[in-house]
């Protein structure tokens, strides 16, 4: 459970970024200029809309376990993480509160969350990252950068206990850092979670109730609104 916050925070942080082919990469001796450039680019983005495919790759299973969804972010601190298949679930958060909804029997049910503090922490981390405060990551992670036809940030947790659950986190970006293509969370036993992003829309105007923690707007209405955004 502990690992969720940094992992999800990182996903959020690099959400402005999305599948990559095998590429040849060269390690960068000093990652700081790349990180600064990335931080600068992220700081100027007000909203992000992304569709994603999440693959849980477990060695035991012959095929990855896939889910589909949408992630929306609005500065300074709002996030909506919605799974659309094979089940429907919405997670909403800001710096102060979190809410989760599950679609059951034709209607959305707001959950009486257990461990809201944990999700709250996740949201705070996400907010921090969305503001481009990558320096905060340096406290918890050793970050290395490799460049080539993609730019890949590899983050290794400094905490041994965290490394016991996640050996590294990779963020795959376009070479100009303008978009994230993939986030990969590697586990020590070889299992991994891969999140592939697509259909990114930046600075789209989100309709009212997009982040409403009482009655969130249906995703279809949001998608209709952002359809023509660049």
């Amino acid at each position, binding site marked *: *459970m*502990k*690992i*969720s916050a940094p*992992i*999800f925070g990182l996903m959020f942080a690099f959400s402005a970024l999305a599948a990559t082919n095998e590429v040849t990469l060269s390690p960068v001796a000093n990652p700081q200029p790349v990180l600064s450039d990335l931080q600068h680019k992220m700081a100027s983005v007000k909203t992000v809309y992304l569709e994603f495919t*999440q693959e*849980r790759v*477990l060695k*035991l*299973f*012959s*095929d990855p*376990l896939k889910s589909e969804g949408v992630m929306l972010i609005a500065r300074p601190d709002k996030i909506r993480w919605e799974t659309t298949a*094979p*089940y429907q*679930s919405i*997670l909403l958060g800001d710096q102060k509160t979190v809410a*989760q909804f*599950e679609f*059951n029997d034709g209607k959305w049910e707001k*959950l*009486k*969350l*257990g*461990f809201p*503090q*944990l999700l709250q*922490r996740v949201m705070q981390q996400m907010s921090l990252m969305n503001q481009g405060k990558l320096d905060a990551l340096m406290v918890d992670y050793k970050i290395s950068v490799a460049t080539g036809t993609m730019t890949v940030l590899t983050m290794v947790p400094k905490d041994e206990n965290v490394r016991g*659950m996640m050996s590294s986190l990779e963020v795959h970006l376009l070479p100009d850092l303008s978009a994230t293509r993939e986030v990969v*969370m590697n586990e020590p*036993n070889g299992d991994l*979670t891969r999140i592939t992003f697509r259909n990114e829309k930046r600075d789209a105007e989100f309709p009212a109730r997009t982040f409403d923690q009482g009655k969130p707007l249906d995703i279809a209405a949001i998608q209709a609104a952002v359809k023509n955004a660049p």
Partner: protein
Amino acid sequence: MRRNLFLLVLVLAAGCASTQPRAGHFTRPTNLFPADGLLVQRALFTARGRQFALNGYLALSETGGKRLIVTENFGNVMADLLVKPDGKVFVLRSSRMFPERYIRRLMAADVECIFGGMPKLDCPVTMLDTNHFVLDRGGYKLDLRIVETKTGAQPASMFDENSGLKK
């Protein structure tokens, strides 16, 4: 946070231990699930009024048994359980939320209740639909939906108690 998690585990354990199981007899229609296959599940686990959304991946093998992997929203494994055809239970991974004792004593029984071949007396399960089950033991409640069914034999390693990460 660790303290909160630990407290929850204690509360759950205490609640389960002090709650009289509700007598129930659940007769599942035959051939509802494939003899060999994978069932992807979404579940709401409710304890002491608090809800936890979980994902379940249950591999079924006529000869190998049942392997259940439970994850939270973002993929972290909360429980990994193997129930052999003879009923022997192996806990391959546990977590603070679901400690080994809980998985061995309660989760294994719940799997057998809903997906086992033989109905048991202590199975307070209501089948709301062919893919929707509610198990209410008083101390906790599980609202479980099967969201995807893949038929076909799963890898043999899935049912090998030595193939998991023992914790």
